[in-house]
């Protein structure tokens, strides 16, 4: 299990709990000492638990939205159940336990699937709903390295309120196409509508592109189909129920093609090549 940064478990304090539109919120967390999440790669995640007793037993997995510095990072989430419900109510100063960074992140735009450099493929980032954070982080990192034009963002939600953190994308100069189911912002329809058009244009122009996607499973399934049908390299950032996050509980199996029928979202992923996912 080779990782760029060793995983660890450590305490953090909630610095801020910022509400966004659409029920989303961003938790900013900080540790007293430098922590390993400072070196997290986009696509990596953390397991978070508050000091709320063991009625809620295990940590909850969240992609890193931003590693601000060696002590501070953020996650973005939405209330889905009791754990996230408690997190929505957290106040600055409250403590949480973090395990991370966990998993393997997205491929870099200058890397080829075989590990070689210089593919020069443009990365089409496809985000849906709560799947935004790892792609937002990925775009941020590339912008920080002066590569805003290495990516284009395709971001979909049910309505305008569910599209968040788009100002940063504009500010960074990341070309962004928005889509909403109700047409209240951007293109009306699923995010796969503008994505399909973009893929067609790329094919016509002979432009090399690849897809990095994160979002609800039906969206990922649709994106996977698009990518596979066109022979476009596609990476999917998946989410599965997990108890530990570091390869022990074996709860987060992902069906794959290959010598073994399953891989693990936490240690083999969460980013998988669409070709290997057995959906």
């Amino acid at each position, binding site marked *: *299990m080779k990782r760029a940064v*060793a*995983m*660890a*478990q450590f305490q953090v304090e909630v610095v801020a709990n910022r509400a966004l539109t659409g029920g989303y919120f961003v938790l900013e967390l900080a540790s007293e000492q430098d922590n390993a999440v400072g070196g997290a790669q986009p696509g990596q995640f953390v*397991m978070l*638990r508050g000091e709320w007793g*063991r*009625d*809620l*037993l*295990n*940590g909850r997995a969240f992609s890193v939205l931003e590693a601000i510095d060696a002590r501070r990072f953020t996650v973005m989430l939405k209330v889905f159940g009791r754990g996230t419900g408690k997190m929505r109510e957290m106040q600055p100063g409250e403590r949480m*336990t973090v*395990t991370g960074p966990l998993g393997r992140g997205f491929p870099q735009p200058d890397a080829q699937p075989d590990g070689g450099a210089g593919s020069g493929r443009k990365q089409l980032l496809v985000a849906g709903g709560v799947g935004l954070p790892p792609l937002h982080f990925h775009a941020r990192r590339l912008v920080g390295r002066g590569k805003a034009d290495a990516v284009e963002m395709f971001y979909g939600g049910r309505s305008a309120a569910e599209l968040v953190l788009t100002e940063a994308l504009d500010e960074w100069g990341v070309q962004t196409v928005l889509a909403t189911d109700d047409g209240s912002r951007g293109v009306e329809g699923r995010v796969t509508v503008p994505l399909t058009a973009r893929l067609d244009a790329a094919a016509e122009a002979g432009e090399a592109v690849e897809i990095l996607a994160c979002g609800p499973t039906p969206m990922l399934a649709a994106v996977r189909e698009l990518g596979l049908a066109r022979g476009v390299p596609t990476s999917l950032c998946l989410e*599965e*129920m*997990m*108890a*530990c996050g*570091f*390869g*022990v*509980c*074996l*709860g*987060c*199996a*992902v*069906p794959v093609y290959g010598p*073994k*029928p*399953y891989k693990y979202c936490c240690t083999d992923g969460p980013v998988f090549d669409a070709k290997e996912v057995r959906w």
Partner: protein
Amino acid sequence: MSAPTPTATPVPLESVELACDFGPLKLRSPILTASGCFAYGQQFAEFMDLRQIGGLSTKGISPLPRHGNPLPRIYETASGMINSIGLENVGCEAFLTEKLPFLADLDVSVWVNFFGTDFETYVDCAKTLSEGGEGRIDVLEMNISCPNIKKGGIEFGTVPEVAHRLTKACVEASEVPIVVKLTPNVSDIVAMAQAVKEAGAIGVSLINTITAMAIDVRSRRSRIATTYGGLSGPAIKPVALRMVHQVAKALPGFPICGMGGILTGEDVLEYFIAGAHCVQLGTINFSEPGAALRVTRELRELMAELGIERVQDAVATLGGYEAEPAHAEVSPWA
């Protein structure tokens, strides 16, 4: 009326001795980690010094590798979780060559949990591990209780005569002592423990998970792909304690490794008082990979506070309540 509280005279922390016996085995500490919750140990080396735990029980090993069950495999419930992983493991051969060397180097008690899919494969597995272990395995923990395999199995863990026959065959095939991990999904746990004791097991591990389910009312499907799974975590501790106590009472001195929902040093002491000689930590490892060391520290501090110098001074020491004065319609003080 409350029970008389034994007067606790604290002892210094350094006079607490955690080294203890489990039948013929010497343990550095009574705190081990449980099968299925610690993989083959390597992942935890990133979080703590594994040499400080008493020992560990591996993921259940079968003669051939197994790939496990379809998704979803786990679901969290109040104070617990349900799992149906399906006994996924690397198989005997890969375990012996790829996993065991790491464990042997730790110099802790190595318990290899194993199972078969029928009588013969159980015995083969015990024999292969015993021989291939070459002295590096301290205990073969025989799993006759996993709720998550379809083929065979269930009567091994629930019918005393069958458990006896299987245990006896494995004991005869193995140079390594056998501890049998029992399922709580029986009506008479004592009969099961008695059966495997008479068959030559050096002790029992109590308890495996409790068969359970949870339902998604929107999809009207089980939260677990195989419909039922095994419940673990603090939700099951009261059931486990009761079973440990029943077996300890019926079979005094027979080594019991207690497990089920241990989160703290105080939980461990409850297990000792109920009659366990050592314990395993399971589900807590998922959310707190360094838990074994914290719980060890807590146990030591609590033993010092309560004046318990050695583990065996606490084992099977459950007290009773004094009988109430007989009822009478008229108070004798009237």
